[in-house]
């Protein structure tokens, strides 16, 4: 029972952090709050028995993301430009409408989902049992998450390694690449009449 009580506290803390992120204007504070958000969700993952995921979320989600955000903030204006209230209201209203509709649909579906932690929910009975048994009997590897990650769904992880490679490639091309930005008008590639497009 204590699992769900701590779960409740952590979730409320996350909601509190979310409201803070929406309200703060200083980007530096927003970035630190996002780091805190990742770390608290890592704590929740531990609480929900997802230790590998908590490890990754803390190291990659809270660690690397926050470092990258802070490194970016070094070059950017510290404060977010506050739109005139009319502009802001329009944005917020349209966003609120979309989120309320999507949220209502999700809540309507979530109410019908099997109860949280119910051992004979379909999710636990169909595919997972074989991973648990075979990881011990055939593969002799205790950490089932590693076996499923590397062997059963190894192609997923190959795809994911390629996604990480793509991100590294993209950042190298964008930040330490050589293709400069064409900006000045009369510098168009040809000497002809400057186009306006």
């Amino acid at each position, binding site marked *: 029972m204590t699992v769900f009580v701590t*779960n409740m506290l952590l*979730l409320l803390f996350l*909601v509190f952090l*979310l409201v803070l992120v*929406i309200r703060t204007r200083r*980007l530096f504070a927003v*970035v630190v709050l*996002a780091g805190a*958000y*990742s770390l608290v969700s890592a704590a929740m*993952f531990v609480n*929900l*028995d*997802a*230790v*590998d*995921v908590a490890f990754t*979320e803390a190291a990659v*989600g809270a660690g690397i*993301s926050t470092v990258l*955000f802070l490194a*970016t*903030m070094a*070059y950017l*204006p510290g404060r*977010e*430009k506050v739109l005139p209230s009319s502009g802001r209201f329009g*944005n917020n209203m349209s*966003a609120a409408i979309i*989120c309320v509709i*999507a*949220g209502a649909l*999700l809540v309507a579906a*979530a109410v019908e989902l099997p109860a*949280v*932690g*119910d*051992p004979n929910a379909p*999710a*636990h009975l169909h595919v*997972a049992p074989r*991973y*648990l048994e075979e990881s011990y009997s055939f593969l002799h590897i*205790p*950490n089932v*998450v590693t076996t*499923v990650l590397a062997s059963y769904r190894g192609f*997923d992880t190959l795809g*994911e390694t390629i*996604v990480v490679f793509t*991100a590294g490639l*993209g950042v190298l091309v*964008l*930040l330490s690449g050589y293709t400069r*930005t*064409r900006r000045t*008008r*009369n510098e168009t590639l040809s000497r002809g009449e*400057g186009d306006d*497009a």
Partner: protein
Amino acid sequence: MDLVATITANWNYLIVILLMMGGLFIVISQNNMVKKLVGLAIFQTSVFLFYITVGKVAGGTAPILMSYGKAAYSNPLPHVLILTAIVVGVATTALGLALVLRIHAAFGSIEDDEVLAMKADAGMPRSKRSRSSDPDGSDPDGGDPA
């Protein structure tokens, strides 16, 4: 199923959905590019929470098979999916931040409205006036100055 029972059984999901929609709200409503990326990160992290909550088995432990016989284990499959999704989320954030840096270098601003209003080669906003003497900077979709 009466409402109270479902609420007590699934309040986890309801709060996670609230977090998801909060993240989505930030992505859509915010004008600052960095804050949009923070919103996207929060939106994705909340979806991970949803998956792990689906995978939780009451009384189960982490899916690491200890030697002392059969205990109830939480479902390992959502954990694997979320391991993949976390790294994909960080990859998206890293690429977005690299683009934000380049946009700031090229446009001088990272506010959506200012950047979208700028033409291909109009001058920089008040912060860094570019040296190009671009007299009219006509609207690209408009007439042709030639």
